[in-house]
């Protein structure tokens, strides 16, 4: 896939194409390398400038960036020995949610997350990360597995929302989501939730209740996608920009309200510009949280989780 830049990333794109041209130029090697190093510095400065003053709508675009790392990238780069586990044992295997066993720094864990897909074929196969009831029921099965074998559960949330389709309704989408909320709220194991891209609606929350809720710096989280909110409240989908701002969907706003527990920084210019760096930052956060949760006994953790849930919007 050709590299895609967001509109506001254009100054970065311009500089990077300058470097590309220089790399193929026949000019004096020393002069070229000096020029490349100058432009590289300029890229860093420009990226810093652009990313230090992103507005909420720009953050929405970064959260949906075509090159933003997905759950499958994080599985590969943060964890080892991943064994994918399939199916809800009732209806099918929903590819929009990936789950399985893995090791985090040699410690076995259960992983769950939405996967939007990489190329067109993969995206279709994964339904763009929009799960159906069987996806949430597979997730529920793996939550129970984590509880049974006393393994920490780590979830990665990245979905525009649960899939709105006829069959989803026939198979009880509402029940599947409700059930997961119920299960997660008193699941007897440690749960870390990472909103890595889009946290859209009930389809996000259905794997998003836990002991420590983190958001990546440029991820978003809201009751509905900005487009859905715009269409409901403004009766005009094109007002998504305003809706995103009104809902305060960004991590920086949401941590101030105490609705999330941590914002995980992203490398300069966003996770898509440095997958390795991004994985290191996420990995550090997981390690710190797991160490902390491991010092507490499970009854204490469940009590705190319940209190946390009850504190959401307490007036």
């Amino acid at each position, binding site marked *: 896939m050709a590299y895609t830049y967001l509109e506001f990333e254009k100054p970065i794109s311009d500089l990077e194409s300058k470097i590309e041209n220089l790399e193929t130029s026949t000019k004096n090697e020393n002069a070229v390398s000096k020029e490349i190093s100058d432009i590289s510095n300029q890229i860093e400065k420009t990226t810093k400038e652009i990313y230090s003053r992103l507005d909420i709508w720009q953050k929405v675009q970064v959260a949906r960036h075509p090159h933003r790392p997905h759950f499958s990238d994080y599985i590969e780069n943060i964890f080892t020995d991943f064994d994918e586990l399939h199916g809800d044992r009732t209806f099918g295997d929903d590819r929009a949610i990936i789950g399985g066993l893995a090791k985090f720094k040699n410690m076995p864990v259960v992983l769950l997350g939405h996967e939007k897909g990489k190329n067109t074929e993969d995206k279709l196969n994964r339904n763009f990360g929009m799960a159906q009831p069987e996806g949430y029921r597979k997730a529920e099965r793996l939550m129970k597995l984590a509880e049974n074998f006393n393994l920490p559960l780590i979830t990665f949330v990245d979905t525009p929302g649960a899939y*709105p389709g006829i069959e989803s309704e026939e198979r009880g989408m509402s029940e599947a989501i409700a059930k997961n*909320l119920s299960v997660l709220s008193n699941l007897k194991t440690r749960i870390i939730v990472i909103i890595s891209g889009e946290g859209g609606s*009930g389809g996000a929350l259905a794997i998003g209740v836990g002991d420590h809720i983190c958001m990546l710096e440029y991820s978003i989280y809201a009751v509905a996608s900005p487009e859905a909110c715009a269409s409901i409240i403004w009766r005009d989908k094109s007002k998504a920009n305003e809706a995103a701002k*009104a809902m305060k969907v960004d991590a920086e706003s949401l941590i101030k*309200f105490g609705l999330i527990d941590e914002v995980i920084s992203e490398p300069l210019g966003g996770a898509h510009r440095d997958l390795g760096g991004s994985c290191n930052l996420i990995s550090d956060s997981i390690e710190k949280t797991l160490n902390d949760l491991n010092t507490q006994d499970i009854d204490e953790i469940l009590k705190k989780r319940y209190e946390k849930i009850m504190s959401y919007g307490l007036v």
Partner: protein
Amino acid sequence: MVKSWFNRILPSFARAHKKDDKKSPVPQGLWQSCPNCKEILYGPDLEANLYVCMNCDHHIRIGARHRLTYLFDENKYSEISADTEAKDWLSFKDSKKYKDRLSEAKNKVEEKEALICAHGKLNSMDVVIAVFEFRFMGGSMGSVVGQKFVDAVNKAIELKAPFICFSTSGGARMQESLFSLFQMARTSAVLNKLKEEKIPYISVMTDPIYGGVSASLAMLGDINIAEPKAQVGFAGPRVIEDTVRVKLPEGFQKSEFLLEHGLIDMIVHRSEIKDTLYNLLSKLSSN
């Protein structure tokens, strides 16, 4: 009876009006047309029939207070967290401020929020009942709806009384965004406490329920009941049609569809709901 007959033959300007007309949750006037079959129905008869159309049996939407009066013996109940009012966490504004929308809803509906909770007796049995008020911002669930629900469940635990919730809601309230979304977790979590105490919860679905309310408290009953032809789903029909681009099947997301797909236990006529609740609860609470 005589009075109502007498009232009927009087010209409209001379008819007696009830004091609380303004508070009534259903369209007033002596004659009303059924939203389903359009039959013109005589108000007092319709009221006596619990606002179920005498012609086509359509269950007309009724307000929360109205429902409470049908359910509690002698219309006596004590309200729970009656004074809790919504909060504008996000200073949300679209074409109007959320604050102004709230004041408008309060004035129009004469309620403080979209959920009313109370405890009292149902056929002499102690119960706690929560009822959504659809006219208050579409019965949407914001933080205070969540909080009142939690308060009501905790009251049920305190009284060791069964808990019943009549839902009708467009879903989570957009204007509180993540605060609203998290009420799905909050209401689902508090229901687990009820389970631990072995106190029954019956969810009664009334037309319509969507989104965040459908995908949390409404589906989590030990027993799920629906009124006939109530529309209940996760995604709204318009959204689904836009996504899948096919015409939705007849009866899609209606109670009968939910029953057929195994999502609810039974469909109960409004006239029988009180006795049905009593019968079910007396069996579940026998130990």
